[in-house]
């Protein structure tokens, strides 16, 4: 299994050059008649060659100018997207920081807002393993913790919108 006739290459060359059977020599034709492998090769190759020619003839391909133009447009779009990506990342991080600072300031100056955010402070407090109860926290540390909590929520959203590709 896996071994083929020694004259297969010769038969194949004749087929590929469209010299079968008229352009081939008698010895090769006689060989193909007596060799099962070569006869099979001729049959399959002729079928595949015919199929190939029919497909190539039937192919409706766009013009080279259109393919070139589309490729250029796509390449330019992708290059522009790649170039603006670092700027978008920085914008996203800046937005997250600004939101965090805003909440910190609101927490520091407005006690009602501070109380309203107590739940998020709890969550942030557990994340940073703080043992101090919320009620005993100074306004400054409360504001910082609130800012951390909000940044934890806002940063992933900002990053998502930064990297999200419009379809």
């Amino acid at each position: 299994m896996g071994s083929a006739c020694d004259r297969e290459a010769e038969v194949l060359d004749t087929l590929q050059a469209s010299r079968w059977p008229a352009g081939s020599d008698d010895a090769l034709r006689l060989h193909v008649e007596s060799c099962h492998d070569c006869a099979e090769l001729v049959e399959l190759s002729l079928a595949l060659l015919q199929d190939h020619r029919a497909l190539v003839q039937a192919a409706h391909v766009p013009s080279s100018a259109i393919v070139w133009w589309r490729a250029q447009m796509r390449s330019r779009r992708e290059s522009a997207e790649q170039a603006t990506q670092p700027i978008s990342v920085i914008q996203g991080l800046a937005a997250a920081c600004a939101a965090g600072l805003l909440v910190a300031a609101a927490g520091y100056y407005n006690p009602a807002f501070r109380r309203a955010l107590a739940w998020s402070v709890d969550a942030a407090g557990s994340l940073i393993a703080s043992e101090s109860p919320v009620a005993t926290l100074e306004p400054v540390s409360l504001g910082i913790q609130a800012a951390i909590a909000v940044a934890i929520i806002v940063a992933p959203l900002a990053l998502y919108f930064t990297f999200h590709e419009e379809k």
Partner: protein
Amino acid sequence: MSNSTFTNVERLAAAARELDAPFEMTEDAFRAFYDRTARVLWAYIARITGDKQAADDLLQECYYRFLRARVAIDDEAHRRNYLFRIATNVARDRHRRRRTSPDIGVAIDESHGADAGSSLRTEQATDLHRALTRLKRRERELLWLAYAQGSSHQEIGETLGLKTGSIKPLLFRARKKLAGLLSGTSRTGGARG
């Protein structure tokens, strides 16, 4: 910080250069190469995917990836093999995404039927398509490259990412399998007819 800014500036400069000249190949060289290869490539994709529509869709993708690839290409044969390798990978990616095996014969048989004058030839073509659908993707690729396109073992190896020495036995087995399927098909067809 200054380092990252510098990197960003470099990236922007590289992108600007790409906007000016996105490909290494010139338009004239590309168009000549495309005119020599597009129909043959289309036929290859249509046959290995079994879908003419896929061939229409993937053709542009293949040439785009070919143009974007900044690899040193020695000669026409190497360039051609590289293009067919891209097509093979693009078709495999598509197959992985779809995970369904379309009916290879349907779309193509219609055009054969319209073109071919002889009903016997059409029937033989249909048998061939049916048999090809039952082969593995790799077997179809091997048979098509070797017998339909007349590629050498070295070229097939380059296109399919296989060692040249392994092509001969793989091709032999694929051919035996196709022959077996075709003889089975013709026997079934004869019994039916």
